[in-house]
């Protein structure tokens, strides 16, 4: 990774996109990368669309402005594919990670991206409903991301994510672990 990789997250307030971006930063920091994680703050409350960002680099990161041209776009909530305008400013060859149960081809056309873009689809909502009984898409999304940051073992994602919730019962932590691993395994390129 010679240049800085910029990530933009689209989620809803309270859904955990901010935490997930922080976990991604922590995992990559542990792997020796230079990282930033910063959410966009507004007056919006629970449920409103929010954005969060990461920068990842092998060299110190100096710029601190918002990410305008992300290399990776994460869409945490399936309803935001159109409404949140996830392609705004992103590079033509950007990578999209989308939480969706939709057919991959259809999703690609809904996003309106060219063949240069890569689209990784994971039904994170379904996975967490099955594993946790709740729609908390963060864990499978992080699992899917481990397919992108291949230099990091998936266990690092598991450890950091469950560490954030270490006061929860062991059963819940184990369910999250399964959700991350399923996210990694079930994510498919469209």
């Amino acid at each position, binding site marked *: 990774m010679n240049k800085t990789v910029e990530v933009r997250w689209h989620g809803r307030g309270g859904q955990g996109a901010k935490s997930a971006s922080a976990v991604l*930063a922590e995992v990559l920091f542990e792997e020796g990368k230079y*990282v*930033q*994680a*910063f*959410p966009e703050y507004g007056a919006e409350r629970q449920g409103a669309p929010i954005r969060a960002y990461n920068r990842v680099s092998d060299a110190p*990161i100096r710029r*601190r*402005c918002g990410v*305008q041209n992300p290399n990776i776009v994460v869409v945490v909530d399936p309803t935001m594919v159109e409404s949140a305008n996830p392609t705004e400013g992103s590079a033509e060859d950007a990578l999209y990670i989308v939480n969706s149960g939709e057919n991959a081809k259809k999703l690609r056309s809904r996003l309106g991206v060219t063949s240069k873009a890569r689209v990784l689809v994971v039904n994170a909502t379904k996975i967490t409903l099955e594993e946790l009984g709740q729609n908390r898409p963060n864990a499978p999304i992080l699992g899917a991301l481990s397919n992108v940051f291949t230099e990091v073992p998936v266990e690092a994602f598991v450890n950091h994510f469950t560490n954030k919730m270490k006061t929860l019962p062991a059963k819940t932590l184990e369910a999250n672990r399964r959700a991350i691993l399923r996210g990694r395994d079930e994510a498919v390129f469209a």
Partner: protein
Amino acid sequence: MSNKIKVMTSGNLAFAEAMRQIDPDVVAAYPITPSTEIPMKFADFVANGRVTSEYIAVESEHSAISACVGASAAGARVMTASSANGVALMHEIFPIAASFRAPIVFGLVNRSLGAPVNIHCDHSDSMPERDSGWIQIYCEDAQEVYDSVLLAVRLAEDPRVLTPVFVCQDGFITSHCYEAVELLSDETVKNFVGERTPQYPLLDTDAPVSYGSFTMSEYYFEIKRNQMEGMNNVLSVYAELAAELERETGRNYRPVENYRADDADYLIVVMSSAAGVVKDVVDELREEGVKAGALRVRFFRPFPREELASLAKGKRGVAVLDRSASIGGTAPLSSEVKSALYALDMRVPVQEYIFGLGGRDLYAKDARAVFEKMIAGDYSEEVRFIGLLEKDD
């Protein structure tokens, strides 16, 4: 055992962590975005016995700074934090704190002043306090925030200085950005900051003094002049302290950061977090053969005018980027830079810019455009605005 550890944290949390290690006697604070995390985190340290401090959860920012002044005059080591309207509400008390020579260390997380209400960064809250008699240090990132808090405690309490300090960081951009910061061990920090030895503690009932006297024209001037001496000593005392801390951290921040300025033809002068992207652009332009450079002003009070003038001397152009306005006058940083450059034998063209009000970002393309205009010799007597929605004439 290593005495350093690198952790993921944010500007606010780095400030709070430094507070925990400093373990001040008293913290009095009131929540306001985006500095709220600082008192929140500190209250948590108190609630879990991780500090020996007392936390006063006051009913307003005005009372926060008033309680800080009281505790500091009493002889305690005191810290607090605030932003924006909170800072404005405290305004009355800042000059009093400085006149009391109360060495309070203050985490000022920069945010715009309403109206309209906006929670994002600009420097319109701290700039009005530039004449309040406080030292102002502006930090670029969370690491610098952490290091600066440690320095600020020593600087404020130094008997040659005895002046309160604002440690400023950009709201959200720095305060809420999660990044790696190298922390010193608790013991190293304790040894570095030592203990406060107040000269005239109010709590010394055997040698009673009165603070906050009334004085007409007979002595007011002399008291103010005496106070100025503390500020006059800041930069030399700071150099000693910065060298001392450098032995622990390997980092040393100059009052003005010189980024490839020595042989540069064109300079951008800027403060705080926006300096990063400017430095990136300097590197890009250098690769293209343009002699670009940047100066990041870290101390705004006292203003390091000699250092700045010597770094800007002989340049073909200087652009000053202010993150606040002085409506009807010259923006604060431009005003200081122009004033400092007046001492030079040969004039340096200076272009004033205002950017980033209310949290609007400064992007690489913006910094590049600023350099390009200088290279083209395109200067205006008027202030220019970066990233503003404007109709073309």
